[in-house]
């Protein structure tokens, strides 16, 4: 098949006009061939925006409990996946983890709180990478979980008494740069393992001006430029390799509007339009 044929096939798959047999064949091909899977993803991006015109329809209220049941069937421990705490156990606190696990199992009876509790456990365990202060208030844990959180905190304190320092952060992080509650203007994705930074432009470029990206860290007296954001959709500034993982992880990222070609002084001269911090986007694979 010619290149064009593969692309047309991916397109028709996304549009939905293929037969059951053809759809199966496409899915098998996509599972084997990442290039072809990429074509499907590209078509999902091209055509996927059509969903914006579909009128929302409220599903029956009992659907949520059925979804929860399905998840419980497939994955009984779903609400309590705590890879970080388990990892700490390998460093010598195994006994405490068993106690914790037993207590946790008892707590699971409080069905309403289970999900929030799992989150509270992660939170209380002092996981460096989990930074709830970075979440907007809208997304933080509801107030009624505070009591549970305190109880859990006490138990977890014991578990995480391990001699070794916390492992360095790794994995993929994302920062959404926006102004106030406005729409996102730039999306940053950081691969900490490779020290690479990708900026996706969501807001259009301004004529005669440049958007410049800055790293703001309390380790430096002034913001450090990470370079200009190009006019295209994606930019990969090379400057991140110069910083260590903890700095990258803790920094605030900001975009200022500068004269064309960037700040003439090396410090932001124009208004800082958008800021954001990194949150973990793609966690490392769960430990066995």
């Amino acid at each position, binding site marked *: 098949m010619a290149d064009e044929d593969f692309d047309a096939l991916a397109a028709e798959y996304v549009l939905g006009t293929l037969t059951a047999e053809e759809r199966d064949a496409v899915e098998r091909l996509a599972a084997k061939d990442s290039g072809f899977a990429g074509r499907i993803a590209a078509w999902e991006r091209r055509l996927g925006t059509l969903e914006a015109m579909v009128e929302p329809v409220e599903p029956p209220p009992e*659907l949520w409990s059925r979804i929860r049941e399905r998840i419980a069937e497939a994955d009984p421990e779903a609400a309590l996946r705590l890879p970080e705490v388990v990892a700490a156990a390998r460093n010598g606190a195994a006994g405490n983890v068993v106690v914790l696990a037993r207590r946790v199992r008892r707590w699971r009876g409080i069905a309403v709180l289970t999900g929030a509790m799992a*989150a509270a456990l992660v939170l209380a365990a002092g996981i460096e990478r989990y930074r709830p202060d970075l979440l907007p208030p809208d997304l933080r844990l509801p107030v009624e979980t505070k009591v549970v959180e305190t109880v859990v905190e006490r138990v977890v304190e014991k578990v995480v008494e391990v001699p070794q320092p916390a492992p360095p952060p790794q994995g993929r992080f994302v920062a959404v740069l926006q102004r106030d509650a406005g729409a996102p203007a730039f999306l940053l994705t950081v691969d900490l393992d490779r020290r690479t930074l990708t900026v996706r432009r969501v807001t259009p470029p301004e004529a005669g001006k440049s958007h410049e990206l800055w790293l703001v860290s309390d380790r430096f007296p002034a913001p450090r430029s990470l370079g200009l954001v190009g006019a295209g959709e994606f930019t990969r500034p090379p400057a991140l390799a110069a910083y260590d993982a903890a700095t990258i992880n803790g920094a605030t990222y900001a975009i200022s509007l500068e004269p064309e070609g960037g700040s003439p002084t090396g410090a932001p001269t124009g208004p800082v339009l958008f800021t954001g911090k990194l949150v973990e986007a793609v966690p490392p694979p769960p430990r066995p």
Partner: protein
Amino acid sequence: MLPASGYKGCHRMLTPPELVWLLAAVAKGDEAAFARLYAATRAKLYGVVVRILRREDLADEVMQEAYLKIWHGAGQFDPLRASPITWMVAIARNRAIDLLRRRSEASIEEEPEAMEVATDSPDPLARRELNEEIQRLLACIGRLPPERQRLVLLAYYNGWSRDQLAAELETPVNTIKTWLRRSLLEIRECLDHG
């Protein structure tokens, strides 16, 4: 900072960064985040699948599968490659179309419980607040001849097969095949190269 707002029971669509955050939390196994994600997206996903399946029981089944897949697959969501809602809609829509095609011998239209859902495609002009991406896509679709515009929109919104499209447009299925291919490649050309 984002404004605090009650989400219970309402289906206000969250902004893309809010959904990205929720998906990241879901990838960690956070059930509370999953509940919020569901509350924010259920009506959009249900709207898409019920339009395609036109049966509540089937739509229900597809929604269960879709959210199960979202729960397990949230870690695979890549905010650089897709918007969160597009990603979720694609999961639900693919399941709906798979189910529809598998059942195609038993004609859904003739079954008694079939729901009344308008089969016309949503009218682009009647919608406001469309973002730049969809405006570009609609502009590109708008460059196609009228019958091929209808073809693409009916296929997307109603999940119709080539046979169903052929019947609706009273056009031989081979012509439909040719039109689909040509239309999609023209849309790609228009989107990618203006």
